[in-house]
């Protein structure tokens, strides 16, 4: 267990859901476990916050949720990333990377990481 566990900010959840679904369709529980696994348990997700975020992404047309009947056990809802969702993921990813680069530059005292020290 990672000792530096942080609560995942609610606003970042849609981006992480889209990124998780890029690898293929998943159900809600699978998305929660994937986020936990990829973050090596460093991010603590309140799992109940996942479903409202999924509803909103579904309403916006970024993901598609379909009930899947299993041979054994109850039906489960599986989510797939749509074409519009892929575009949104690309956009949000670029924004996030740009934001992280700016913050990184400020924390390094204004030194661009691409510049070679003289």
């Amino acid at each position: 267990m990672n000792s530096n566990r942080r609560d995942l900010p609610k606003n970042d959840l849609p981006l992480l859901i889209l990124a998780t679904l890029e690898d293929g369709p998943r159900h809600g529980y699978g998305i929660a476990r994937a986020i936990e696994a990829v973050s090596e348990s460093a991010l603590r997700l309140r799992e109940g916050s996942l479903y409202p975020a999924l509803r909103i992404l579904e309403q916006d047309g970024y993901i598609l949720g379909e009930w899947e009947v299993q041979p054994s056990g109850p039906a489960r809802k599986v989510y797939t990333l749509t074409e519009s969702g892929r575009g949104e993921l690309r956009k949000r990813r670029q924004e996030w990377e740009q934001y992280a680069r700016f913050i990184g530059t400020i924390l390094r005292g204004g030194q661009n990481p691409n510049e070679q020290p003289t």
Partner: protein
Amino acid sequence: MNSPLEQYLDSLHRYLRFVPSGWRDEQIAEVRQHLSAHVDELTLAGMTPHAAEEEAIRCFGRASQTARSLAAAWWRQLLPLDVHTRQTALIAAGGLACTGLMQGAAMPLLNLYVPQYLRAPFGMDSLSLVTLVYWFCVGALAGTRGKRGTLRGTLWGGVAGTVVAHLTGRLQAALWMSDPQVRQQMDAAMTRAAHESVTVIQVASLHQLSWILSAFVILCLGASLTARQLSLRRAVN
């Protein structure tokens, strides 16, 4: 006695009683599927079923919090606006309906009780005062969001709401009084009221009712504004 999981789903069902049953059942089925999968995993890892259910529920979060977010998502599909704009729009629509009802009641009041009706604080009748205070609060609510919760934004919103309500009221009165028939009725009512005695108790109770109504509306809006300010401050801190 129900298991912790069933109790949790029951409370989620209760909290979501104001959304359509089909939509609610689908959400609950999905939450059930999520929790069951987590319980199975924890049981396989060696936990007792009861402890596993409690742990899965702990990870999922409070039912009230989950239900609130789910209900907000349902409202969002109904009215694709953010929560605060939706609240302001609903309050404004309620205000329009109340103002319409009060305006509807104003004419019989004027006909029957002109002197008492006009004898209200600050030189204006109580209905106009209620309307102006109401629109101050609606404007303040809208301004709170527009200026990201600063006191100045709230006050400017309130002032703008009051000015717009006042100007609309004056325009409405001017249009109303430009009708010669209405003007004649008004003059007749004034003359009659000057000569006839009126039932003071009835007038007093109508005034009390309007003041109680206004106090209630102002209290609700004040509480809503305070809650909004507090939540904004919490978010900033």
